[in-house]
């Protein structure tokens, strides 16, 4: 315990405090800049750390990492450009809130959630890090295979564009993930002989193109209906009602983030997805999600910050970097002559506890900074699109270039920008595509690795305890609602007993939510007419339904449209059709 207290003494040295501040400020800035992620920034800053003490260096680098999670929220909410992959889901409700003039509340709740999630995660890290050592190693390829599968199914649930379209987009994302040299046979796949594609397509240009450029292009076309950004942002602090509404989400988000962050792989991204999906499922009014539900911002932002913090656990307790950023910090430690490993806590207690404890300070700094800086960033919304769009495009392209110093990546951004624009025109949400792309290579390599380990026998997935559990979860999430659907289709009256009876609850929120994401705003807007109600319940009975029968879209122009946050619905995206028609249902 004295080591913990000594750690605080280390943090409170003026130099360390200063670099903690420097780190979180840089982190916040690069978090706001889409494209330049913490891993790239930390790599760029490595030479600067050569002259520092190891503790100071890592305190600063860690500050960049979790600071970026705070900053990434800002552009998600204000510009609908996720600054970081882990803020992608924040876009759904955060942007909706901003369009309703509640950007302040969204950013405020995100800062509070991030603070709570980060802090709870540090406390847990302090106690758990020494114990957790053996656990992370039990996650081998089979476990990752199932985690990735679960993640992709979550993608389909969180998407607001309709499940079938989401799965279609996710399928394209999976295909894109196969581009590049095969990791197992080094055969070229879809590289067209281009060396720049040998390692596959980078995540950054895809995300920047589909989300960033695609959105800008789409907005250019939509300008005639563009609504002025909120002239005044009132209530930078979330209201008491917001806080009450979000407290549960923040609590659950902290736990999800902490647990998923420990696992090597995309902890922050996965946990933000999982937290969002959980809140949507739990909510009594899931239709609010995508329309500006404050929990939809609180949950993922809490979770990604908690995950960011807990992803230090495998690095500091095992010497295993959990993600790209951790790998770069691993490299920074090596430069300093400190090899992260199981002995780090005992051999370099001042480093271990210094870094851990600096995160308390850093989170407090970020919370304090978030309040004055919020005003600064909110003002971005007042800048006219004609000014902002070119600047954003420029920053996006510069950011895309700096990741790999590659002109080819700039071309990719433009290509995916056009694709993103076309997808939105056709009513497809680019979100699932990007996220499936991220999980795609994990899924493929883990699956193939697992089969090598099992000598080609797939039953291995079921017999290993952790992967078996995950497999059961996967079945529960995916197949049971489907089975319920089929049963109910055979027997129109929902009288099926047993497990099916248990599931109306499970699939209700999702399906209702998907149906309702199409609706403009909670409350009696345009065509939210009585005839849609039966449609909803009909859909619940029929389970998976692709499109939205809610037919208000074309008529809802102007302000109502602007209040719709998520990528879901624009006119034309929700082809109206007979709600009772089952002909287009998936089998």
């Amino acid at each position, binding site marked *: 315990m004295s080591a913990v207290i000594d750690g605080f003494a280390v943090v409170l040295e003026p130099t360390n405090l200063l670099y903690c501040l420097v780190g979180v400020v840089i982190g916040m800035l690069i978090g706001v800049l889409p494209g330049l992620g913490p891993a790239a920034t930390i*790599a760029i800053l490595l030479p600067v750390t050569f002259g520092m003490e190891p503790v100071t260096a890592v305190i600063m680098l860690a500050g960049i990492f979790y600071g970026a999670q705070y900053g990434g929220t800002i552009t998600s909410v204000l510009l609908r450009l996720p600054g970081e992959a882990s803020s992608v889901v924040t876009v759904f409700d955060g942007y909706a809130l901003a369009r309703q003039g509640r950007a302040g509340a969204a950013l405020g709740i995100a800062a509070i959630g991030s603070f709570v999630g980060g802090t709870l995660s540090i406390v847990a890290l302090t106690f758990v890090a020494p114990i957790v050592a053996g656990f992370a190693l039990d996650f081998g390829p089979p476990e990752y295979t199932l985690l990735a599968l679960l993640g992709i199914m979550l993608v389909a649930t969180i998407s607001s564009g309709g499940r079938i379209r989401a799965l279609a987009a996710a399928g394209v994302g999976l295909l894109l993930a196969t581009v590049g040299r095969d990791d197992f046979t080094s055969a070229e796949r879809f590289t067209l002989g281009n060396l720049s594609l040998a390692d596959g397509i980078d995540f950054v240009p895809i995300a920047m193109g589909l989300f960033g450029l695609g959105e800008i292009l789409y907005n250019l076309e939509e300008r005639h209906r563009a609504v002025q950004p909120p002239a005044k942002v009132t209530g930078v602090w979330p209201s008491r009602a917001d806080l009450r509404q979000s407290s549960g989400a923040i609590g659950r988000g902290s736990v999800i983030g902490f647990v998923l962050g420990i696992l090597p792989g995309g902890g922050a991204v996965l946990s933000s997805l999982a937290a969002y999906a959980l809140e949507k499922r739990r909510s009594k009014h899931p239709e609010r999600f995508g329309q500006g539900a404050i929990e939809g911002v609180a949950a993922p932002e809490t979770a990604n910050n908690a995950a960011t913090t807990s992803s230090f656990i495998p690095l500091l307790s095992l010497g295993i970097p959990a993600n790209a950023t951790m790998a770069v910090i691993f490299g920074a430690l090596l430069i300093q002559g400190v090899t992260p490993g199981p002995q780090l806590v005992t051999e370099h207690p001042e480093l271990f506890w210094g870094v851990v404890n600096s995160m308390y300070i850093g989170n407090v700094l970020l919370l304090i900074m978030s309040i004055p800086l919020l005003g600064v960033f909110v003002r971005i919304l007042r800048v006219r699109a004609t000014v902002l769009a070119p600047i954003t495009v420029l920053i996006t392209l510069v950011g895309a270039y700096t990741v790999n110093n*590659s002109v080819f990546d700039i071309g990719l951004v433009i290509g995916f920008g056009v694709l993103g624009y076309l997808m939105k025109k056709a009513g497809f949400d680019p979100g699932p595509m990007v996220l499936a792309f991220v999980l795609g290579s994990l899924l493929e390599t883990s699956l193939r690795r697992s089969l090598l380990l099992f000598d080609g026998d797939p039953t291995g997935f079921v017999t290993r305890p952790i992967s078996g559990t995950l497999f059961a979860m996967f079945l529960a999430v995916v197949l049971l609602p489907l089975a319920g659907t089929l049963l109910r289709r055979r027997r129109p009256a929902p009288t099926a007993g047993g497990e099916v009876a248990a599931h109306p609850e499970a699939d209700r929120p999702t399906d209702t939510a998907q149906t309702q994401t199409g609706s403009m705003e909670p409350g009696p807007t345009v065509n939210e007419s009585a005839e849609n109600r039966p449609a909803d319940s009909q859909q619940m009975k029929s389970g998976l339904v692709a499109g939205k029968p809610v037919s208000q879209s074309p008529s809802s122009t102007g302000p109502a449209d602007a209040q719709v946050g998520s990528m879901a619905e624009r006119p034309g995206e929700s082809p109206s059709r007979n709600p009772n028609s089952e002909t287009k249902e998936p089998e």
Partner: protein
Amino acid sequence: MKITLPALGLAGLLLLTGCGGNLDSDGDSGSTAAYPERAVTLLVGQDAGGSTDLIGRALADPASKDLGQPITVQNKPGANGAVAAKELAAAKADGYTVMVFVGSLAYITPLAVPADQAVDINNYEVVTGISQDDFVLIANPQTGFKTVQDIVAAKRPIKFATTGVGTGSQLTQTLLFAQAGVDATAVPFNGGAPALTAVLGGQVDVAAVQLGEAKEQIEAGKAVPIVTFATQRPSYMPDTPTATEAGFQVPVQQSRAIVAPKGTPKEAVDRLRTAFQKGFADQAYKDFNTKRLLTANEVDGTALLQQWNGSLQTYRDLVAQHKIDLTAK
């Protein structure tokens, strides 16, 4: 317009790092003609933070002091450095673009990729060798393996993790198990850390990783060293036999060199070589080598070409002799 704030911050960062520490021009520059009159770009074909990147950066700093001009490291990751090598080949041969070239790209990758994708080191101008990394075969303690004989005696099929296809990690183990007659299946991972994790987690029996990567885990008793693939016992691991001592012919190392485009003027190559030799003598760089368990291999271009071409021939022969196909899983 507030968005310019982060943009400015970014520009500041880039300036800071691009020129950081390399600006003192009080070295003994000017002794050889006009070269260099501006900054030299050092391409790195691997991700920032990886071993090759760290080596390049550790060397760039002291060498630039002698050169009197900044040496800016630029990462162009992709295809084990083939992307950067292609760019280097296309760059102007004026001594202002050089690259940290990894040996595996020159003498192992050609065995695993189609001929038209293989990079030939003889199409470049080698400035100087840098250092060598040794591979060590490690086992999960629960396997009970302590020597290669233990693995053979277990008489069971084993799984081994590699750091990827066409890497030294794959070549060493494939050759070793072919010679030892062990039924072994390769499971490729992306890099040293995940391969190491797979051993620690017991997902595979053994893995070959670079010495520096495994050091901590070996000292902690979580991984058992079986053999190294060095030519002689590395000073860092005096108790672990080499594969040669254990009776197998598997001399495989990772090696790195500074390489310029073909046709770079001799004066520039010589001037760069002098600068890098000053860099090698720098105490901070020497300490870096010790910490990373790297063995110096600061030979000139001719000697390096001989080493690497020799390795390629040796591996070609061994692979043919044991009928190994590195591209097949």
